[in-house]
């Protein structure tokens, strides 16, 4: 299969494959397994699996790579079933968290390895390796050993080695986890650029949501072995479908209660959900999620100016942190609810001190209604 695939003209671009994961289950006895995971990854798409550690995202990746076999379900690449095919015959590129470069080989030999395995002609190998090293900007390091390179450089070598044989699918398992924050941000841009140039389909695993938001076309949010929601960054932020997603992606205030007649009843207080995204069954436990930037905080003395249509809650400031563009304020209501709000720098000063009384208000159309437990 890969033999013919490699007889393509000498460019670094490969067309991305279409990966379909359907109802895959893998249990381990303890946790870390997956239950009924289904994802369709479109050709050329950059899809990220995001979730807390142990939520099953790496397990899914290992199932696709072939290091694990699913108990149930099917995994196909371009229509061909992968289950039962050993990893070395799947033709899938993989980048590991700890780089996994071969320490006894030079950078060049590392990148050449998948080509040698495939018995490609020497001259063709040479030009493919050179092109791959150029794409990751490490041409000058070809003759060095991995231990002589920095973490970021080693990860670029691992990337070059994973795509040099033009896999239709590239898997990355927290590739930036071992790097410091600054380098990580630079590498995010670098990896996105390289993947766009290659045109390969990418499945990327991370627990860092900023990374996921910055790099991906779509994101699958994992929780306890299941996918909670699959969508674009904006879908997940603006239109979360579950409480977990609302809580995990970005900051938010979560008000729990029961849903009745277009409103959420929270400790006897009816909060309108008119125009809110999402729907729940009448009389069921529900929660309203509001992003910090959608909340307005006014001093308790200025409540007269609040329009009738907006929801209001009285609260006490517990903490205010200066963030540069705004202040992050945490407030607590009499019922113990914690509210996470942003206050503009020019807001009245009587709002920033712990103990100050304030009224929090929001437009119900800017809130999201999700089922609660």
């Amino acid at each position, binding site marked *: 299969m*890969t033999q013919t695939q490699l007889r393509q003209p000498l460019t670094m671009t490969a067309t991305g494959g279409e990966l379909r994961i359907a109802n895959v289950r893998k249990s381990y006895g303890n946790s870390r397994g997956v239950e009924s995971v289904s994802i369709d990854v479109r050709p050329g798409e950059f899809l990220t699996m995001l979730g807390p550690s142990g939520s099953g995202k790496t397990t899914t990746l290992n199932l696709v*790579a*072939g*290091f694990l076999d699913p108990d149930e379900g099917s995994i196909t690449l371009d229509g061909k079933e992968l289950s039962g095919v*050993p*990893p*070395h*015959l*799947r*033709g*899938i*590129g*993989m980048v*590991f968290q*700890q780089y*996994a*470069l*071969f*320490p*006894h080989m030079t950078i060049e030999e590392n990148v050449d*390895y*998948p080509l040698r*395995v*495939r018995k490609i002609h020497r001259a063709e190998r040479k030009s493919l390796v050179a092109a791959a090293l150029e794409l990751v900007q490490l041409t000058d390091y070809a003759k060095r050993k*991995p*231990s002589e390179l920095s973490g970021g450089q080693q990860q670029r070598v691992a990337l070059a*080695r*994973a795509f040099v*044989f033009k896999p239709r699918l590239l*898997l990355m398992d927290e590739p930036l986890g071992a790097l410091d924050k600054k380098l990580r941000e630079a590498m995010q841009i670098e990896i996105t650029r390289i993947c766009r140039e290659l045109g390969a389909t990418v499945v990327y695993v991370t627990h860092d949501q900023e990374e996921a938001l910055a790099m991906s076309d779509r994101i699958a949010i994992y929780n306890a072995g299941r996918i909670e929601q699959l969508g674009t960054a904006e879908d997940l932020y603006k239109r979360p479908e579950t409480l977990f997603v609302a809580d995990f992606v970005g900051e938010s205030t979560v008000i729990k209660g029961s849903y009745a007649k277009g409103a959420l009843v929270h400790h006897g207080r009816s909060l309108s959900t008119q125009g809110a995204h999402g729907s729940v069954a009448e009389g069921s436990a529900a929660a309203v999620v509001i992003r910090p930037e959608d909340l307005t905080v006014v001093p308790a003395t200025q409540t007269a100016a609040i329009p009738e249509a907006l929801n209001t809650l009285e609260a006490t400031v517990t903490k205010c942190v200066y963030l540069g563009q705004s202040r992050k304020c945490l407030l607590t209501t009499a019922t113990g609810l914690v509210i996470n709000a942003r206050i503009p720098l020019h807001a009245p000063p009587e709002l920033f001190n712990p103990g100050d009384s304030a009224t929090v208000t929001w437009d119900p159309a800017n809130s999201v209604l999700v089922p609660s437990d």
Partner: protein
Amino acid sequence: MTRNIPLGLKIFGGVVGMLLIMPTLVVIPMSFSASPLLKFPPEGFSLHWYGVFFTDPLWSSAALRSIQIAALTTVLSLLLGTGTALAMIRGRFRGKSPIQVLILSPIIMPIVVLAVGLYFVYSDWKILGSVGGLVLAHTVIAYPLVYISLSTALKALDSKLEDASASLGASKAYTFRRITLPLITPGLLTGALFAFTMSWDELILSIFLTGPTVKTLPVVMWDQVQTELSPTLAVAATIVMLVTIVLIMCALLIGTRRKALKP
């Protein structure tokens, strides 16, 4: 790291060190003796007894026999030790701890017990005094050393490298040849050197299991010490010691090089 050690402690340490090493080194001047009698301090200086050692068939054939047996023991121990270490480190099965104890038991058990047991088994099998029998016996005590050295090397080897190799298209056999084997070679060499050394100066099993035609160097030395005390014995001791020191030095050098190679 150097610390300030009190002078008295330094002297004490030096004396203990000397006491440990002097009885071993005493054979070197004795081997250059000019007198036909083995005694300390030696009289005069000559290389005569070195000549005797290398020309007298009793000594030279025993030395060659020892080399042969040590080499065969090394090969057999490497094969068994590598297989066992791979199974124990990479394999997934229950009961690893008891198996580990079983593998290491020959170096914990008193060798003389093993020798008596093997003596009766070998006489029943009629392989007493054979090269093969001795190689097998030496392998029993040398193979745990190869196992220890190799399992350490395999534990230090990141299994993600083997996964990476598979994801790049390499079969299990290709991965073992190109990735695993080169990376555990220092461990393999260290194990081989220890196995060779173990067989090279082994006396207890050899006394029990050698016969009149197949004798190793340590056994001939043991015979000689009871019959005629010629300085050739000191020559043999010196040569046994030199070979051992050189091999252990090699093993230590490989060990330090391995550490230096780590990123």
